[in-house]
């Protein structure tokens, strides 16, 4: 079977890696270089801690194991893979109670959690007076562009090809099944299946393939400080959002993630704004992130911000990724809409797509176990997204 994967970001690279490993003929098509979209605009989070029990957490658990395997093959140092663990800190006793309840549900779903009474035993520089938190030893970190290009290289070693170009339309046979992809330069890449791994641009690529999916951009800023000696060991964030989840259905308001990198810089991310593809700077959001980070780690007040970047997370209306075959155009599969979790969910998504293509489980991914992510969930009669 020959497939075309549209998108050379982390998800496309992981799809190519797994599909090529399974012996499929893979062509990766992207209009730009590897990982130049949302992949390069995040923090490289591989998180279990922030996910509620449900379909996304199931994919995240699978993905976490596959990250360990992929990290081995790519070389943990080469992709800056760090098994650093996450630390969620509550700021009030009520917040701590809500966090503990949340963590108990996650533990029941198979996530490793560990109550922490003394946060400073984990993070010596954290703000004093915080009541406690939860340690998530499985949370990890990877440098996303290095990881994407590493996965793609590994796919190429298994026979995959990478091609620069823009997907224009699906080519279909008389039975309506995909037979290939037409590119903007007029070429047709023959394929038995096409995987839409275009991330934030997955909505547009889906339209071009005749299988539109509702994927919208959600802007985020990430801040980077000057390099420092190691000061922060884990991915640290405030549990405020857990209290919000517990108290209301809408206000998923939380504080930033603060973490050190191997280069010595500290990353502070990330904001969420629904402003379309507006690339302009929002100094107020940057200031707010800074304020939140300084509340968690007061020493940051004297540390210089040297860089900020922003990107656009691809989100679906129900905030779950869309992974699987589209019933409207046989042979089209979607692998996009991972919002801010694409790095962590990429290997699981690649394995699941491969399993769906093969029609049997692959690397622990069983198509029958991840039906909550299928595109059908958006489709009413007639195949129009809600």
């Amino acid at each position: 079977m020959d497939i075309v994967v549209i998108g050379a970001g982390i998800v496309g690279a992981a799809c190519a890696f797994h599909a090529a490993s399974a012996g499929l003929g893979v062509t990766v098509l992207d209009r730009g270089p590897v990982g130049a979209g949302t992949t390069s605009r995040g923090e490289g989070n591989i998180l279990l801690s922030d996910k509620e029990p449900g379909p996304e957490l199931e994919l995240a658990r699978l993905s976490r194991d596959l990250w360990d395997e992929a990290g081995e093959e790519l070389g943990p140092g080469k992709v800056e893979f760090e098994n650093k663990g996450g630390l969620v800190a509550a700021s009030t006793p009520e917040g701590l109670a809500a966090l503990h309840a949340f963590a108990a549900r996650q533990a029941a779903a198979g996530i490793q959690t560990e109550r922490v009474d003394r946060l400073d035993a984990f993070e010596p520089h954290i703000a004093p007076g915080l009541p406690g938190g939860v340690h998530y030893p499985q949370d990890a970190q990877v440098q996303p562009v290095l990881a994407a290009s590493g996965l793609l290289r590994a796919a190429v070693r298994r026979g995959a090809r990478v091609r620069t170009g823009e997907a224009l339309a699906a080519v279909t046979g008389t039975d309506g099944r995909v037979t290939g992809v037409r590119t903007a330069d007029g070429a047709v890449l023959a394929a038995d299946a096409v995987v839409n791994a275009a991330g934030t641009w997955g909505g547009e690529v889906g339209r071009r393939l005749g299988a539109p999916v509702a994927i919208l951009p959600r802007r985020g800023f990430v801040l980077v400080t000057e390099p420092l000696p190691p000061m922060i060991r884990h991915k640290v964030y405030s549990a405020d959002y857990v209290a919000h989840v517990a108290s209301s259905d809408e206000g998923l308001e939380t504080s930033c993630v603060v973490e050190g990198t191997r280069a010595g810089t500290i990353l502070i991310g990330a904001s969420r704004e629904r402003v379309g593809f507006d690339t302009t700077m929002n100094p107020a959001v940057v200031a707010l992130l800074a304020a939140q980070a300084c509340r968690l780690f007061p020493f940051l007040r004297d540390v210089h911000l040297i860089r900020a970047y922003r990107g656009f997370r691809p989100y679906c209306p129900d905030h779950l990724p869309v992974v699987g075959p589209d019933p409207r155009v046989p042979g089209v599969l979607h692998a996009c809409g991972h919002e801010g979790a694409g790095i962590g969910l990429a290997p699981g998504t690649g394995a699941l797509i491969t399993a769906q293509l093969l029609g049997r489980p692959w690397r622990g991914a069983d198509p029958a176990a991840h039906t909550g992510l299928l595109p059908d969930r958006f489709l009413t009669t007639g195949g129009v997204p809600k």
Partner: protein
Amino acid sequence: MYEPQDVVDLVVVGAGPAGMAAAVTALDGGLRVVLVDAGSAPGGQFWRHPPDHPREALPTEDLHHDLRTYRALRAALAAHERTGRLTLLLDHPVWTTARAADGFTVHAVDRSRPPEERAVVLRAPVLLVATGAYDRQLPFPGWDLPGVLTAGGLQSLLKGGGVVAGRRVVLGGTGPFLLPVAAALAARGAEVVAVCEAAAPSAWLRHPAPLLRNPAKWAEAAGYAGTLARHRIPVRTRTGIVGAEGEERVAVVRTAALDADGAPLPGTERRIEADTVGVGWGFVPQLDLLLPLGCDLADAGDGTMAAAVDAGQRTTVPGLYAAGEACGVGGAALALSEGRVAAVSVLTDVSAPGRPGLRALAAERRAVARHRSFAHALARAHPVPRNWPAWLTDDTTVCRCEEVTAGAVRAARADGSASDHRQVKQLTRAGMGWCQGRMCGPAVHCLVAARAEPYTPAERLIATPITLGALADSAHPSTGDTPSEPT
């Protein structure tokens, strides 16, 4: 949050020649202006001065050019400051700008009382960016040794504090800017052992017209030539600095004759004892504030991209104007004219009562055209030589902040995955450190990009480092509508 003025018509960022001229013209036309600059005195790099207090103690007058214009502009600014229509904010680097419903916001850091840092937000219905340019640097083996500086750095040490950076100096690179630096160093007692000019002396003969139309440049060049002759400073053309050696500091400079494309000719290498090296390959427009605002760029003709402006210095963003080196490097005289033209456009566009006459404007625009054509001729005569990377060994550091070598950059390209300097940054960390690629960006660009492409700097949303504390204090409670989440 500190907002110094209720009502202001125009914010000018950068108090160099372009910004000073623009501010004075706009003030003369009746506008209320905020002029904001990172330095502790107006003048920019060209008229860089020591901070106000010790000025008498450090005579730097002889190092400057056209001080009469500088004094006139300062006097005009001072007069407008007294009337309250000008707010001059010195020691206020601007860290970002943003579009707002009623114009722009300009976000600065008040560093006038160190170590305190305070965030300052200026509201600007109209914004004029005159942020100048910075040295274009090209790496060579040993360029990370103490004692290796940019030509511009040597000059600003002299002008800004009377500091002579070394005793035996070798200058290299290309362009006439090397000459005033050599003259100034010699005048302050340094021994300038050689000026290594990569271009051929005949380069100017191919395009003599712009030089002939700018007699003032002749006179200026003749003045420097005289100084150089008096101090017996040899200018070696088609020669490059290809290496520096030393333990704690530069001790030996290696130079070589260059072929037409800039590759060192075998067997021509010379070793010169020196404690200081100054290198200048021209300048790169400072676009950090302009890029995030979304203004279009244009090929400046010297291997760099600059702000695209119309004949009135309007950028492609309504209400945003640019003047000076940010629109293409061309020297102080051009910057002054562009600053005035930009201010006249502002006055016209906001229908201010006091606008200069059409004749004066036409003359100013002619001056811009004349200086601009001179700048283009200069760029043609003093290009960055195509084969400069021939000096590099694989272990030559290219990005000093992150210690990334030329070999690592070339490997990222050979891998097939990196085709521009942004991609190289992601794969190698070149350009991710303190200077954010301001130093290595043009060099990395040359190493990976198609040759003909001019350098476009990476977008930098943070134009100058600012402490998180100062930022945090500026956080507005009313922005609680923009929550953040872990992923």
